[in-house]
């Protein structure tokens, strides 16, 4: 196992960890907002780590570029959808109980 593979594996594993953390948050947190918080924050990082890991593993600039695009798109999608969900949730919640 050379250095490249070690780094790749480490990145992938940590990516998985963040995903798991995000999922646990999704399942365990009490309300929509904190769940979104866990999901977006942790998953975006997890996605970055996994993309990075894969890029290192492949070692090709073209693929690295593609992975970067994937991460950016994922980031954008997560941002927008999280924003929309949060807005909707905010509208539906009782104003008294808004955080």
């Amino acid at each position: 196992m050379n250095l490249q593979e070690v780094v790749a594996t480490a990145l992938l594993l940590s990516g998985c960890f963040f995903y798991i953390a995000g999922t646990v948050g999704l399942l365990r947190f009490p309300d929509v907002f904190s769940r979104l918080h866990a999901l977006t924050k942790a998953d975006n990082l997890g996605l970055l780590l996994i993309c990075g890991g894969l890029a290192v593993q492949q070692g090709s600039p073209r693929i690295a570029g593609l992975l970067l695009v994937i991460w950016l798109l994922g980031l954008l999608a997560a941002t927008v959808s999280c924003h929309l969900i949060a807005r909707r949730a905010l509208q539906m919640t009782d104003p008294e109980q808004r955080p």
Partner: protein
Amino acid sequence: MIALTIDAIIAIGIVWLALQTVRGANVFSAIIMFIVFGLIMSLAWARLHAPDLALAEAAIGAGITGALLLVTWRRVHVLEGRTPQVGMAARSLWLTLPTALAAALLIASLGWVALTLPAEPATAGELAWQRLPEMGVSNPVTGVLLGFRAYDTLLEMAVLLAAWLGARVVASELRPGALPGPAHEEVPLVGALLSLVVPISLLVAVYLLQAGGSAPGGAFQGGAVLAAGGVLLCLTGRLESADQTSLIERIVLILGLAVFSSVGLMMLPLGEPMLAMPGVWAIYLIETALLLSIALTLVLLFAAAPGLRRSS
């Protein structure tokens, strides 16, 4: 071993999600479970060395079908004015037990049959590999779809057209505004997303189309991706339903079928058989037409509208 573990995890995931789809507390969560089921299925396709299917499953099976299911759920929900939260109706035991048993039996027999099937040489498949070079494409699936079994694909386009025609028949009397409708207020982020995602979906669609000859991809996957862009435009109110199907829309809808048939017929006067492909260019021409038809048909099906127009 790791591979096997992954397979096992995927398999368990698929079965669990299927079960959740069937047993979901309400229809909405059942639909969500089904969408996730589709996504995991595409992993299974990837594991089974069928990347074309993985793409198709993710884009069509999970993506478009999911969007259709959700939008219908919403329409039915809105029209009915009550949340269909009936959940699993408790059927009487004497009915439930035999059905469950029958289903289990079916599983058992199917599994048994499949496991004991003798390994026959797959003649058609072998031949497809052997004669692929004659087609001028290197992706065998594209070769089969647009070469050896092009006739299936052609009729499949007719099926898609029939689905739209059928939906138009039954959706004819729907009140306007059955579409989700434009967002009540403009969210700045949405515009940013669209200005990025829609062009990219077009790009990806074209890429998939072009790649289909040699790599995973093709008209169906590309069409579904393009349709996803269209669905997004509908959802965000950039496109709204029109009362009429415009001429261009009509032409695009039949484009796939018409171009495919015409190219197929073209060689008849030259003494070639029906659907003999005159060259690789013909395959790409057909695929382009298919892609456009598929994308528009799917978007129109999603919108449940005769046509679409840009919102003012």
